[in-house]
Each structure stands twice: as C-alpha cells, then as structure tokens.
C-alpha cells in the first residue's frame, strides 16, 4: 500500500532575554552549576514570580511576524508534575489562553512550490533545570541555571507530509527567530529544540493515523533522520498487521532509532490551572502597533525584494535570505561590486559550498563580505576568469591576503593581450595538425579540445572568450 506521513512539530524557542522569565537571574549559558539560580529559581518557600516584559515583547514580535493574532489577554497556568529539576513541582506555562494564536509560515518545497504551514499557537513558558546523571555515583546532581529560562513553544498544525517538509519548516522558523533577534538559534546549546508528532495513513485517507511523539531532536539532520525512521517504523508495523500506539518516543542519534519512553496510559495529568501568582498579560492595540513598527524586513519580504530589485531567481533569493546574516553578507557584497546578480552567483556558489564543507557559519567566514566583494570585482572587470577566481578564493580563505594581493603575488592576472593569445593558439594548432583538419572538416566537438589546450598553455590566464574568437578566426581563414 502507498502511505502518506502526517507531521506536526512543537518547537521550543529559547528567547534571548538577558534575565529569566520570572526572576532577575541571568540566562547566560555555560556558568558553573547553580550560580545563576536565585531564590525564585530555586523555589524557596515564599518566593513569587514576576513576569519579564522582554519575553512578552519577543513573543509579540513573533506573533506579528507569522501573521498571527496576538492575544489581548493571555494567562499563565501551572503545569503540575514532580521532577527533581522542576523546583516548584509545577512549570509556569500557558494553557487555555496562549499569547500567540493561529498564524502561518510559508516553506519552499524541493520543486520550487510554496507551501503554507499552519501555526496552531505559540505560548510562553519557563524551562526546567538539568539533571546531571554523571559524576555523582548512584545519585543525580541538579543544576538550576537553566530553570526559568524563557521559552516560546511554537506548535504547528499537522500540515507537513514528509521529513523534508518538516526540516524546511524548522529551518524557516529558525531563520525567522534569528531575523527577529528573539533567539540565538544555537541548537547545540539547546536554544532551539524540536519535538515531532508523526503518524502515517494510507494515501487518500482523510482521518489521521495514531501518532507518536518524538522528543527532543536537536539538529536539522536528526529531525530528518528521526522522522524518516519513525515513518518507516510505523509503516512496517502496519504492514506486519500491527497497530501504532500513542506514545512518546525518544530519538537515539547514536543508534539512529527511536524507542518508547512512555505510553498514553502513563502520561501525566498535568492538572493545569491559572497561576494565581501572576496577573493575565494584557496587550493593547497601541503596543501591537509599536512592536509592528520595530519588525525588521522578514525573510519572505526580503526574498521578494531580491527577485524584484536584483532580478534574482526564486531559488537564489531563497538561499540568500535563508538567514539574516547571509542576506546581510550578500547585500554588502552586492553594494560593493555593483553587480547583484554576479554577487548572488558567487555567494550562493563558491562561498556557500565552502562554508558548508568546512561547517562554518557565515558569521565566522574567513573571507569577509568586503574581501569577497574585492574578488568579485576582479571577475567583473575581467582581471581574472571565474576559474582563476576559485583559486584566488582558496588563497584568500587560507589567509594569503586580499584578492588583489593574491592575484598579484601569484601572477594570476588574465591575459587579454590578443597577440600573446594568438601566439598560443598558433602553437596549439601547429602541435595538433590532424585534429585541426578534422575540426575544419566539421568535427565541431574538437573546438572544446583546442580552447582547452590554449587555456592549459596559458595556465588558465587567457580570457576564454578571446580564445574562442581567435580559434573561430583561424578556422575561417
């Protein structure tokens, strides 16, 4: 049978506030255990939470950016369960009345089509601490530095139909929160975490299948693998006459498998109720207008502008606007070179490939936008060919200097002197008389051979267009 997957994601976005959502303690990552946990975070008797306004501000920005309704009144609720790294015995979250209501995020599919993914809601909540199971023989250590860190949990509709779509959605959301500067997006440090709800159904069937929730998948690659694995597991199960049970599963990246954590029957009754220590969050239209005024140009708007203004393809514009940092890089290069299209080709081509290969973020690129613009300018003014430019770029990446310095020191300047090129053409023809006769006789394929030989003789420095032109002239003479 032919199956279709149905996927919804719950993504925890750690908000980049300086202090915690309900206390004044710092949210900085990596401090000594329990040095960033104040009386409120430790849940001493008698302490009370006070809402961090900046967390509300960031959630509001997000809501407006996904075209969602930002609630005029939202309510914090207590989610009750016992766990050693949950100091109060309840998590302050939002339940019935979240701050962000229905919105949407558009993703680009592999075939270039755009697909709209619904966002059901996004709510504010506090993170728990960490349980440390190593280093304490037979015991568990508790680090409450993370306790109380603000999270925005973004819940999607079950609108995705493949792991690739899920990854595209996750990447788009990741890019969006970085555009909005509400999250540092650092997945290794857990600033952007994903749970996936996955089910399968025979293609054409309307009802959803029973879903499994895969917890805490913390990289784009793992999301794709975990979901694909889970889809396969469920299909195999059904094909073998079994039934998918509603449960929570944990993805093990080392073994590349998901395994059951707890079933529906074991699920907690969280006994949500409005937190009497906190007042409802009231947001008026004036505040919404203010925040709307602060929104930066968002990825979709930027992409459209690149297409309109720079005449870029949807694909290139999409790649360049994939992150705010990459877009900023590109815009600097384009402004300096005065050639957006050429700049786009080189940013999405050589640079992107290098970053990818070296697993380096654009912000850590060893060639700055200004330096890269220097290289592209030399292509544009015919000082070097594209092929030579790649060699120059390698040298620049390795810290051998600016484009001009590398071209100079390596003598890579393109040969545009017609006389010099013609001499090389003549020499190549003289060395390959038989092939030249065949070319003359109509074997056009050999043209490439001759151009190649000349380029080789010039060590790549000859202008290929000139070589072509001279060869043609020789044939016709």
């Amino acid at each position: 049978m032919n199956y279709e997957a149905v996927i919804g994601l719950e993504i925890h976005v750690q908000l980049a506030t300086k202090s915690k959502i309900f206390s004044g303690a710092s949210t900085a990552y990596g401090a000594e255990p329990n040095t960033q946990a104040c009386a409120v975070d430790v849940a001493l008797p008698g302490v009370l939470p006070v809402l961090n306004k900046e967390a509300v501000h960031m959630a509001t920005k997000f809501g407006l950016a996904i075209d969602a309704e930002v609630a005029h009144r939202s309510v914090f609720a207590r989610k009750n369960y016992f766990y050693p790294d949950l100091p109060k015995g309840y998590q302050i979250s939002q339940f019935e009345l979240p701050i962000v209501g229905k919105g949407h995020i558009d993703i680009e599919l592999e075939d270039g089509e755009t697909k709209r993914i619904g966002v059901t809601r996004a709510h504010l909540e506090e993170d728990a601490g960490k349980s440390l199971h190593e280093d304490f023989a037979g015991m568990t250590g508790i680090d409450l530095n993370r306790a109380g860190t603000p999270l925005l949990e973004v819940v999607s509709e079950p609108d995705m139909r493949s792991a690739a779509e899920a990854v595209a959605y996750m990447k788009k959301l990741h890019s969006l929160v970085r555009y909005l500067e509400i999250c540092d997006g650092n997945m290794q440090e857990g600033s952007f975490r994903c749970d996936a709800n996955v089910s399968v159904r025979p293609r054409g069937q309307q009802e959803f299948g029973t879903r499994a929730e895969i917890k805490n998948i913390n990289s784009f690659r793992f999301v794709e693998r975990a979901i694909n694995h889970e889809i396969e597991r469920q299909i195999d199960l059904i094909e073998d006459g079994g039934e998918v049970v509603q449960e929570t599963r944990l993805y093990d990246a080392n073994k590349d498998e998901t395994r059951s954590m707890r079933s529906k029957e074991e699920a907690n009754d969280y006994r949500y109720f409005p937190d009497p220590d906190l007042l409802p969050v009231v947001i008026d239209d004036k505040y919404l207008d203010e925040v709307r005024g602060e929104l930066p140009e968002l990825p979709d708007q930027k992409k459209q502008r690149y297409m309109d203004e720079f005449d870029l393809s949807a694909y290139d514009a999409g790649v360049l606007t994939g992150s705010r940092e990459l877009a900023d890089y590109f815009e600097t290069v384009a402004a300096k070179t005065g050639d957006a299209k050429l700049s786009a080709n080189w940013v999405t081509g050589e640079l992107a490939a290098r970053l990818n290969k070296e697993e380096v973020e654009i912000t850590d690129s060893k060639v700055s936008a200004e330096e890269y613009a220097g290289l592209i300018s030399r292509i544009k003014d015919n000082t070097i060919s594209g092929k030579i430019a790649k060699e120059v770029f390698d040298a620049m990446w390795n810290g051998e200097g600016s484009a001009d310095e590398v071209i100079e020191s390596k003598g890579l300047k393109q040969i545009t002197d017609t006389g010099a090129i013609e001499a090389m053409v003549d020499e190549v023809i003289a060395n390959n008389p038989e092939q030249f006769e065949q070319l003359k006789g109509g074997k056009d394929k050999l043209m490439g051979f001759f151009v190649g030989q000349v380029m080789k003789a010039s060590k790549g420095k000859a202008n290929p267009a000139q070589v072509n032109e001279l060869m043609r002239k020789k044939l016709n003479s």
Partner: protein
Amino acid sequence: MSDYHEKTLAELSTLLQTGEVSSSALTEYFLSRIKQQDAELNSFITIAEDQAMAEAAEADERLKSGNTSALTGIPIAHKDIFCTRGIKTSCGSRMLDNFISPYDATVVNNFKQAGVITLGKTNMDEFAMGSSNETSFYGAVKNPWDTKRVPGGSSGGSAAAVAARLAPAATGTDTGGSIRQPAALCGITGLKPTYGRVSRYGMIAFASSLDQGGPMAQTAEDCALMLNAMAGFDEKDSTSIEKEVPDYTADLNHSVNGLRIGLPSQYFDEGLDDNVKAVIQTAIDQYRDMGAEIVDIELPNTSLSVPVYYVVAPAECSANLSRFDGVRYGYRCEDPKDLYDLYTRSRGEGFGAEVKRRIMVGTYALSAGYYDAYYLKAQQLRHLISDDFKKAFESVDVIMGPASPSTAFNIGEKAEDPISMYLSDIYTIAVNLAGVPGMSVPVGFVDGNPVGLQIIGNYFEESRLLNVAHQYQQQTDWHRQIPDSFK
C-alpha cells in the same frame, strides 16, 4: 517591676520616643515574659533572643540619632509563615523544621526598615491550614483566657501571644479567617487588609489568591501603626497593588455619626451561638447610640463560601506545596531508595494529616475530568460572592457581624471532625473570596471567653475600618482586658 505589657503599641512608642524606655530594655522585658510564661501557651516556635537584642541595640542608636518612625524600637512577633533571614521559618511543619530562611519577607523587611525588633516566630497551624492551631507540628497553642481551649487558627500563636501580652503586637496571615477568628477567640484586634495591599513575597503560600498578611494587636490604633509599615506595592509580588498608602492613623478620630452599618441576615442565622449573638447585638446597639444607622442587608451567596473555599484553597495549595519535595531544602526521608521513594516518604513523613487532606482534595479538584465541575465552577461562584459585597456596599459603609459562630472551643473538640472545624470559618471566608478587608474587634465575653465583632469594608477602606473600630474602643475597654494569669 514595670508594666510595659499593659501598654499598647502606641503607648510604648511614646515611651521610646521620649526616651523613658530603651528598646533594649523593652525587648529584654518581653523576651523574659516569653521565656517565663510561654510554656503554658506554646505560642512561640522560635525565640530569636540574640538577633532581637542586636536589633534593639541598633534601634536605640536610631532613637538617639532621631532617624525614627513611630515603630522604631518596638518589639513584635512574626507568624512563622513569614521568612526571616537567619531565623528558622517552619510554617508550623516538620517539613520546614530545619529551614533557616536566607532572606526576609517583604513584610519583615518593611518592619526592619522601620526599626522594629523581631522577638521570635509564633506558632501556627501547619502551613496555615486550620482554625484551632492544633495542626502545628509543634503542638497545639492554648488560649490564654482558658488554657483548655483553642486560640483559633491559623494565626493562633500570634493571637495568644498578644492576648497574653507576651508581645505588644504580632503579624498574622488570613486565608479564610486566620487573623480574624483567632483575634476574636483571644480577645485582640486583628485586620485582614484588602487582597494585594500587603506584599505576599516571603509569606509562605497556602492559597495564593486568598492569602493576605495583616496586623494583630491590642487596639485599632496599634493595627493602624502596624499597617503603615506593612502596606504598599512590592515589585516582587505581581498581585500587590500599586496604590498609594495613606496614613492609617489619620482618620481614626472621625465620628461614626451617620455611618451606615449593614447587618447581613446570613451572619445571624441558626448556626450562631445565642450568647455570642447577644454580645454582638450589644456592640451594634452601642454603634447605634454613637449615631450610626443600622441597615438590614443580604449577602445571599454566603452559604456558598465554605464549599467554594474548600475547592479553591486546596487546589491552590496542592500546587503551592509541591516544592516541598525533599530535593533542595526542608525535610528529607532517611535513605531514599529511589526518586519515587524520596518523594513519597519525604512528603508522607514531612506533612501532617490536615495538610495531606487538603493536598489530596485539591489534587482531585484539579484532575482531568473534574476541573470544570469543581475548580472552574468554584471560580464562577466566587464572582457571585464578590458581587454580593459590591452590591451591599452600594447602600452601606461597613458590614458587621460575628467573626466566629462561637467562642473558643475545647482543644480536641473538633480535631477529628474537619467539617465542623471548617464551619467555624463560615463568617470569615467570604471576605477572602471577595478580597475585601475585614477586622475583628473584641466586644465582650461569654463565660469568660472573648467575643469578636467582625467589621467588613469595601476594597481599600482599611482606614474606615480602623476608624470605626477605634471609635468603639474609645468608649469601651474590652481591648484592655488581660487574662488573669498574664496580668
């Protein structure tokens, strides 16, 4: 031997300001009274002698330098629900028997800023859950008027200590009557302010939407002086209200001529002891004689208040008390074999029966499938109860009635009968559900046991309540009575 214990807080303030007594002498005097006479009452859990004497020495410096408030140098006691830095803060529970708070509650800090000395921490029902002070891990408190009887609860230690003049005044908290009922049963004056008037920061939470701290003292004037220090917006408490704090002593001398007093028929029903009713009636007659107008009113939803309270308060407490898990502080069971064992035995052994009962009731009320029927319904009914008061205050200035349906009952009498115990708060609970302020003022005795008149005001009308109580106290001396064995 001096007679400082016969003085009101206001009188002691004058003695301090004029230099007739030092704070050190006064503090020593009350510490020694506590040490000599509290064995009979069990009203203190902790006596903070060293800290108190150090604070008194500082206060004396302040008194010399002139940098003072009316309260500088006055020693008081804090209910053991308020966190006090460096002093055990047990909340009457085995769970916190080993807990020394690393910080001061806002109320405690406010008093420190004013130069007030902390004599010690008073006994209370465990986590403020009780109406008799019998649920304390530290044993029952005895009523100084008759030590076979309860002092009321949950602020029973504070009430008994003030009634026996072991402290000139004390703090209390009131979730369903925990200031007013013990004040009534011990013959002292107690005020529960409007919800949000006094910061809850550092006051160990029982039921967050109902808890409110307030003063317990001999007179309305003393309560006014205390409230001046206690009240105010606190940025650490989101439910505290950003509203200017008046000088609560300013209106004390206003006349009550023309005051409209509402008597709700529901507060004088068959559940009220006839003798108590007669004493209350006499007090109301006295107000009439002073020129007040007595109006019969209705608070039709009063009967709902006990059931609503016993859903809302346990629900909130079930979550509030989850932090006591044996992990970070407080009681931890011996040799837990795993996490589940750590939780269940620490909580099972650390909490007493009444606390467990309420946690279980609250957990049940919030459970999936029951939430709508209990918690949500209770919150809806709570609005009806508030509306009763709003409507009543359209036609009257204050509401009066008994603070308790009877005088103090015997220790052990109701301990095994929670329903009968819960009903002893029938006249006080609605005030917490609505959030309005209420007082209890001593207005006489039945067979040697004090009776308290409850005065209820509109939101933020503490000044009026204190004025109304003060005017009565200008004409009577019930508030100056001291039990024989503590004279």
